[in-house]
């Protein structure tokens, strides 16, 4: 299976020379090009990639921000960083936010090609099947309680998808930017596929609640409906679910304003909704130690809100505070301030991103 690799850099000449240099590896991987992080995100939505290679300093959206988006929305796609600015803190930050490799400019095309090939090879360390029925094979995965990531290509349409299994349980599915059962229904309806198995699973949260058998039956039903001319397109249920959880957290303040003052004092924000949202988006690496209300921070939050008002910045969503010596936390404004304490290894950039979305 020839795998798609996305190269992201704002230096057009660099991209073109890499593309040319990689032509001799075209039987292993093919490359698509993006000029910056925003362009890369658009391409990620439209195509299936097995690896992203990105520069750090770029206009519109830099490599760090792109990396954060990939780790949240495409956790199965590894990222290799290339940059001219090899500062130790940059390397440390890149690895902290999930990059699998780092290569310093200038570099030999062959060195990067070898790094790409090694990373891609790891994605099929469990083997590749070139003509299989996905339904039958996946039932075997379930029976054997395997933990793996399976990448599939529909031979008739060329569509590509990813399935995440942990101990035989189907946790999630993804086709381009669509996750969850909707993506699983489409993938499981494919008759003839090429599939490669990676013996590890980066997905932590279970986004598919149903049993594999039920998903398979629903996939068949949708396929029959499609064959009868009915529209069985992916509906984006995942997005709706996320929006629902957002409204639980962000909508807390609006709901508070509508209530009588005496009720507001006793009401607490839904800590479980915050935890669920972080678990779902970041998984075990979220690094949250505790969530509680702490009105000793109301003064700071009020001052911050005042500065926001001065600059006409809109409503305050999230305050990240570091006091040094491993004391990092996030403050959420409300009737009383909600404090989320973070451990030193917490992926604070992701957490801020998720909570402020």
């Amino acid at each position, binding site marked *: 299976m020839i795998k798609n690799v996305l190269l992201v850099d704002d230096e057009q000449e660099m991209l073109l020379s890499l593309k040319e240099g990689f032509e001799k590896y075209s039987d292993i991987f093919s490359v698509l090009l993006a000029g910056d992080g925003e362009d890369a995100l658009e391409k990620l939505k439209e195509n299936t990639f097995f690896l992203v290679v990105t520069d750090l300093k770029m206009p*519109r*959206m830099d490599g*760090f921000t792109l990396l954060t988006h990939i780790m949240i929305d495409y956790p199965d796609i590894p990222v290799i960083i290339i940059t001219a600015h090899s500062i130790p803190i940059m390397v440390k*930050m890149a690895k902290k936010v999930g990059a699998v490799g780092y290569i310093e400019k200038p570099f030999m095309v062959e060195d990067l090609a070898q790094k790409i090939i090694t990373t891609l090879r790891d994605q099929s360390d469990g083997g590749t099947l070139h003509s299989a029925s996905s339904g039958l094979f996946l039932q075997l995965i379930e029976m054997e309680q395997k933990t793996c990531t399976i990448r599939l290509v529909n031979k008739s349409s060329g569509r590509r998808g990813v399935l995440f299994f942990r101990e035989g349980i189907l946790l999630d599915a993804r086709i381009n930017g669509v996750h969850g059962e909707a993506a699983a229904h489409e993938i499981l309806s494919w008759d003839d596929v090429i599939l490669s198995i990676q013996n590890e699973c980066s997905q932590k949260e279970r986004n598919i609640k149903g049993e594999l058998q039920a998903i398979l039956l629903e996939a068949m039903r949708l396929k029959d409906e499609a064959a009868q001319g009915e529209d069985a397109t992916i509906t984006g249920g995942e997005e709706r679910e996320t929006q629902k959880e957002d409204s639980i957290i962000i909508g807390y303040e609006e709901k508070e304003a509508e209530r009588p003052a005496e009720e507001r004092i006793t009401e607490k924000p839904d800590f479980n909704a915050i935890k669920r949202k972080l678990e779902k988006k970041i998984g075990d690496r979220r690094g949250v130690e505790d969530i509680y209300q702490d009105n000793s921070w109301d003064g700071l939050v009020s*001052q*911050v809100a005042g*500065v926001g008002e001065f600059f006409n*910045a809109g*409503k305050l*969503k999230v305050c990240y505070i570091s006091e040094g010596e491993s004391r990092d936390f996030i403050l959420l404004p409300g009737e009383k301030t909600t404090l989320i304490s973070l451990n030193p290894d917490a992926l604070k950039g992701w957490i801020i991103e998720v909570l402020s979305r």
Partner: protein
Amino acid sequence: MKKLFNDILSMKDVKGVMLFSFEGELLFRDFSSLPSTFLENRDWTPFIKALIGVQEADLVFETLRFYIRKTTTGYLMVLMDILAPIAMVRLNCDILLPSLKQENTAKGLRNLFKRKK
């Protein structure tokens, strides 16, 4: 001194920088779109005093974002659009802080930044 902040100020979506003393005095500001009097007429003391103990802060609003960093002189605040590359801003601050410290030691930053009354 403006040169010191050039890397940050030239970043896309960064609107400006402000440097405060620990007492809340505005020592330096560079905003492309705001008149200086707009910033200077505000009493920043309560805000800066509320930051005591804070080494670093990232304040996210609906349309803007503020990155704050404690320096040897006081607090540096970078104002940016919501989609600004915060990791790069943080990195540029990491690079900038030693130079700011040197400048402070060598020339006496307070005098250098002192506003004309």
